[in-house]
């Protein structure tokens, strides 16, 4: 019975996150990208689709594009490998969506009483504050279980999972290019694989510094670590402890997403449309959709790793704490007695007290806002910078980003060694 | 042996050599219209005026025509001095006074000396404000040549050609001054067998070829060194083509064979390259790809030869084919096919003359003969007709669709061919034999392959590939190599160089044996 409930919850999470969030944002991106670039260039962008004279500022283009993609002729060139040609776009979208499994949209739900300890919420084994008050002061406080309702898969090796899946992501592109029986597609596919393999290296190394600082591969744990207050005031977000790594990671992951200025695999001025030259209809749509989903994912993972993920600055389980002093101190023996907790709850109330449910709600909202801002940053970059030359891309990947991330790793290690 | 200095470079030449020839030897091109190395020198166009420096202390000399002035001892010549350039400008301006400048219409545009020299030496706007003299336009001088009086610069090259080379003297200059025109004598036509040479000679567009007129602009042509296959003279030609279609033949200077000339009939033989071509290999009327055609042809040949014996198998060599093809054909016929009866085909004899045209209308008969030892030369075609009618031949492999028979014999031959058990025809053209063939293999013409041809005087020449093969045509020797391999008696070569090395050795041996 519990297994069935677990399964139902997992399914619900997948449905809500993948279809309610990822797919919605991904398809909205098709319009957003065009609108965003249009506004940057003093144009109106798509505004002409209309129903009964109403245009809704171009929102109907979403529907129009979808209908068009589905109704168009699905063309497979002669000499193409039909099976691989068909599977390739699906592989691209599959990896782009599966990767969302590790993104935590909020901290795991606490079934007991959540209290902040030095910037990290801990879930104590009391039903609520009243239950705590009535407990024996001398009793050692226990911990209540938490449920990862806001993350599809709470993996303790989440980042490794991410690298594994992005590694597979290149197959969709490379196979699509190879199976099309077109030289442009093949060149595009080759470029894509070379580029993605090159940048995967520096992408991984740029995050290694972060792993050393937080000491975990669990993505949710890394977000929780970012709630700690530095010098008692500033939340210890990834961007503060690893500013250099953020730029390296952002560059490498934009290169991974194959978008300008790294869109050599599709370089329309040289390769027509690169690896998806020979694709049409919904297969073409799926390729571009997976590209947009990748953009959303890069926004999400950047927000998660470097901008505190679901953390709202200074907001903890019981409300806002603008300084670390108002929080519970670390226990001397690794455990707290109920009395210590009772005195904390009575004495040091948070600066602004908020109920736990509202806190979770705010955190989800904050995370979504961060994602949208990161997407806007990527769009801004994509529509500002011109495309690199291919040799420049390889130069940047191997001769600049790779040494830079190694240096970053070295300095981080040195700093950790000296500070501890 | 007088010595002279031209533009500061000393040269020693034979007595009687003119300045224009001496300058050409040093690499100075003196512009000229009327001068032609094969014709007499009238020095009437004045384009080749050059400056000869006077002896010390004497006033400057009048400019002299380089084509007429013979080199004298100690002569100092300037071909590009300021005075010379000024004179050239003046001559060009004079010539252009009545020239219509209708280059867009004119066929000569692109290979016109007047155009070239105008761009090189004149290049100034016209100062003439009077109207131009109008003369005859589109006047046919003969069946091949059309005359435009307005474009004519009266260099008289065409007149001298007819006087000196053909000796027919059809042309003359009529009227005087700016009304002068080239005309045929009353009651005459420019209808000699070499009349189109006047079109080549004409430095401007005054004489145009009826055949080539308006067909293609000359700057679009690609020129390939080739030979004319109209008769056994084998004149050297520029084979000029555009979009894989031959547009014209033009004689290529070859002092040993045809000098600057070529006959009108030969110029028209390019039509043969495009006429009635076999488009694809066909076995039993069924068009096939080459690999399948090889297999099926070889199978049919094998079965037929086994059924009737090598003695009932005949092979017809064509003197139209190149030496490479004939050599491979001999190897194939004697080895792979095992045919014991060999014959010679080709075109029937025609009329000849005492200049270039020969009666034998096949370009490579000497090449064919020298391919065989004297005692094993193939039999004449009449023998084939007799043997066919006697019923001794059941399998016939024939190169080329030409039949060297006329009239009643030709009809008899066609009737006899229809009775053989297996008739393989490997030819560029269908003609009457195409429909009769059980196996039809397209062959490349001289325009589509590299080949060696030996002319009537025993001079071997090589053609270059100009066109992409039309239809599925292949050089015959390649087909023989493939068929021999399918018949499991492969020839010893598969590249043209191997074949040629072997072939020239055999040809040398045979010709040495024939000479002794």
């Amino acid at each position, binding site marked *: 019975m519990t297994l069935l409930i677990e399964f139902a919850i997992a399914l619900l999470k997948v449905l809500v996150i993948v279809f309610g969030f990822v797919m919605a944002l991904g398809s909205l991106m098709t319009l957003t990208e065009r609108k965003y670039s249009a506004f940057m260039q003093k144009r109106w962008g798509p505004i002409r689709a209309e129903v009964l004279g109403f245009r809704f500022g171009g929102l109907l283009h979403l529907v129009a594009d979808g209908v068009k993609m589905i109704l168009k002729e699905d063309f497979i060139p002669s000499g193409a490998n039909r099976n691989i040609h068909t599977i390739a776009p699906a592989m691209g979208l599959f990896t782009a969506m599966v990767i969302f499994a590790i993104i935590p949209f909020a901290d795991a739900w606490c079934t007991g009483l959540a209290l902040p300890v030095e910037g990290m919420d801990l879930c104590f084994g009391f039903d609520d504050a009243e239950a705590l008050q009535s407990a024996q002061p001398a009793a050692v406080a226990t911990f209540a279980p938490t449920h990862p309702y806001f993350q599809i898969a709470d993996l303790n090796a989440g980042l490794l999972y991410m690298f594994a899946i992005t590694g597979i992501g290149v197959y969709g592109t490379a196979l699509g290019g190879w199976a099309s029986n077109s030289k442009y597609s093949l060149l595009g596919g080759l470029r894509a694989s070379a580029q993605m393999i090159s940048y995967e290296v520096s992408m991984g190394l740029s995050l290694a510094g972060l792993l050393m600082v937080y000491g975990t591969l669990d993505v949710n744990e890394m977000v929780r670590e970012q709630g700690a207050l530095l010098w008692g005031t500033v939340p210890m977000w990834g961007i503060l402890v690893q500013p250099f790594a953020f730029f390296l990671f952002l560059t490498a992951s934009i290169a991974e997403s194959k978008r300008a200025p790294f869109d050599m695999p599709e370089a329309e001025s040289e390769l027509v449309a690169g690896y998806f030259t020979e694709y049409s209809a919904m297969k073409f749509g799926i390729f571009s959709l997976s590209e947009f989903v990748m953009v959303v994912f890069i926004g999400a993972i950047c927000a998660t790793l470097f901008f505190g993920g679901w953390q709202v600055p200074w907001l903890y389980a019981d409300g806002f704490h603008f300084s670390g002093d108002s929080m519970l101190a670390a226990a001397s023996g690794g455990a707290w007695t109920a009395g210590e907790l009772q005195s904390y709850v009575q004495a040091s109330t948070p600066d602004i007290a908020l109920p736990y449910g509202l806190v979770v709600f705010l955190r989800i909202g904050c995370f979504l806002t961060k994602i949208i801002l990161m997407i806007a940053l990527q769009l801004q970059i994509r529509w500002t910078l011109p495309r690199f030359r291919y040799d420049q891309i390889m130069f940047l990947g191997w001769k600049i980003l790779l040494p830079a991330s190694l240096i970053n790793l070295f300095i981080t290690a040195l700093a950790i060694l000296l500070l501890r | 042996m007088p010595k002279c200095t031209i533009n500061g470079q000393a040269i020693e030449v034979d007595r009687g050599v003119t300045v224009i020839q001496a300058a050409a030897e040093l690499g100075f091109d003196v512009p000229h219209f009327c001068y032609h190395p094969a014709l007499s020198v009238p020095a009437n166009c004045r384009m080749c005026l050059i400056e000869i420096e006077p002896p010390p202390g004497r006033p400057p000399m009048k400019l002299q025509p380089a084509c007429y002035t013979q080199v004298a001892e100690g002569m100092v010549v300037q071909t590009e001095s300021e005075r010379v350039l000024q004179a050239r400008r003046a001559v060009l301006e004079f010539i252009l006074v009545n020239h219509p400048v209708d280059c867009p*219409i004119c066929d000569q*545009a692109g290979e016109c000396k007047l155009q070239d020299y105008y761009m090189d030496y004149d290049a100034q706007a016209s100062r003439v404000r009077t109207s131009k003299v109008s003369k005859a336009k*589109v006047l046919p001088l003969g069946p091949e040549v059309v005359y435009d009086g307005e474009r004519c610069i009266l260099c008289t090259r065409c007149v001298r050609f007819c006087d000196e080379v053909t000796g027919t003297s059809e042309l003359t200059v009529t009227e005087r001054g700016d009304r002068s025109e080239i005309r045929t004598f009353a009651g005459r036509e420019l209808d000699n067998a070499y009349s189109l040479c006047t079109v080549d000679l004409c430095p401007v567009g005054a004489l145009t070829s009826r055949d080539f007129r308006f067909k293609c602009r000359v700057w679009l042509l690609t020129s390939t060194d080739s030979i004319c296959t109209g008769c056994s003279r084998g004149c050297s030609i520029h084979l000029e083509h555009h979009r894989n279609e031959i547009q014209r033949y033009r004689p290529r200077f070859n002092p040993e064979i045809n000098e600057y000339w070529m006959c009108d009939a030969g110029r028209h033989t390019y039509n043969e390259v495009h006429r009635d071509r076999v488009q694809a290999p066909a076995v039993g009327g069924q068009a096939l790809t080459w690999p399948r055609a090889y297999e099926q042809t070889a199978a049919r040949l094998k079965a037929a030869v086994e059924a009737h014996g090598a003695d009932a198998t005949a092979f017809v060599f064509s003197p139209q084919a190149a030496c490479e093809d004939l050599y491979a054909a001999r190897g194939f016929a004697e080895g792979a096919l095992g045919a014991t009866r060999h014959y010679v085909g080709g075109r029937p004899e025609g009329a000849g003359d005492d200049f270039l045209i020969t009666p034998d209308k096949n370009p490579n008969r000497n090449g064919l003969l020298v391919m065989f030892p004297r005692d094993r030369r193939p039999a004449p075609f009449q023998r084939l007709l007799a043997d066919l009618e006697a019923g001794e031949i059941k399998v016939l492999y024939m190169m080329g669709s030409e039949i060297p028979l006329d009239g009643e014999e030709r009809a008899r031959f066609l009737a006899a061919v229809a009775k053989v058990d297996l008739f393989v025809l490997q030819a560029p053209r269908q003609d009457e034999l195409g429909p009769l063939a059980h196996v039809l293999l397209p062959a490349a013409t001289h325009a589509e392959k590299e080949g060696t041809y030996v002319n009537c005087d025993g001079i071997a020449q090589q053609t270059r590939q100009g066109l992409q093969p039309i239809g599925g045509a292949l050089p015959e020797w390649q087909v023989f190599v493939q068929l021999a391999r399918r018949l499991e008696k492969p020839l010893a070569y598969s590249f043209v160089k191997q074949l040629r090395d072997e072939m020239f050795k055999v040809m040398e041996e045979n010709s040495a044996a024939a000479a002794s």
Partner: protein
Amino acid sequence: MPAKTLVMERGKRSFWVQSYLPEVANGLAVTLKHLVRFITRQEESVFTINYPEEKRQYPERYRGLHRLMVREDGQVRCVACMCCSTICPANCIHIVAAEHDDASIEKYPRIFVIDELRCIVCGLCVEACPCDAIRMDSGVHCHSFTDRTTAFLNRDLLMNLGTYSAAKQGGERSF
């Protein structure tokens, strides 16, 4: 006249320019500024032209469909010199010349076909024409084709767009 050569000094680029980073930030700032000003309606001018309702004013030298000019008597001016088809970088002009009955005209295009789908609208044919026979000043948009063969505009179609040109060969144009 010999060509004058001017040696251009290649500007020195500073380390920060070469490092690309500040310039990226500058670029992002510029585009962001435009975005914000456009969204907040501080920038009034819009580049978008709502095509079927609004139309762009074509410049005077706009190159439209080709047209073949005609002589006084309505015959085609073209003398089939092939200059246009020779210069055409897209190889889209196909001409077959023929002998004209009138000896003063002498040569005319029996077939003159332009493949408008192949045409890259470079205007070199007009530049090359020595007879003012082909022009691209018709002002007519190349319409859309559903079949390749309908894009082959032949001589008579092209002449329908054409008008009389009294230009003298080698002389000035008179319009």
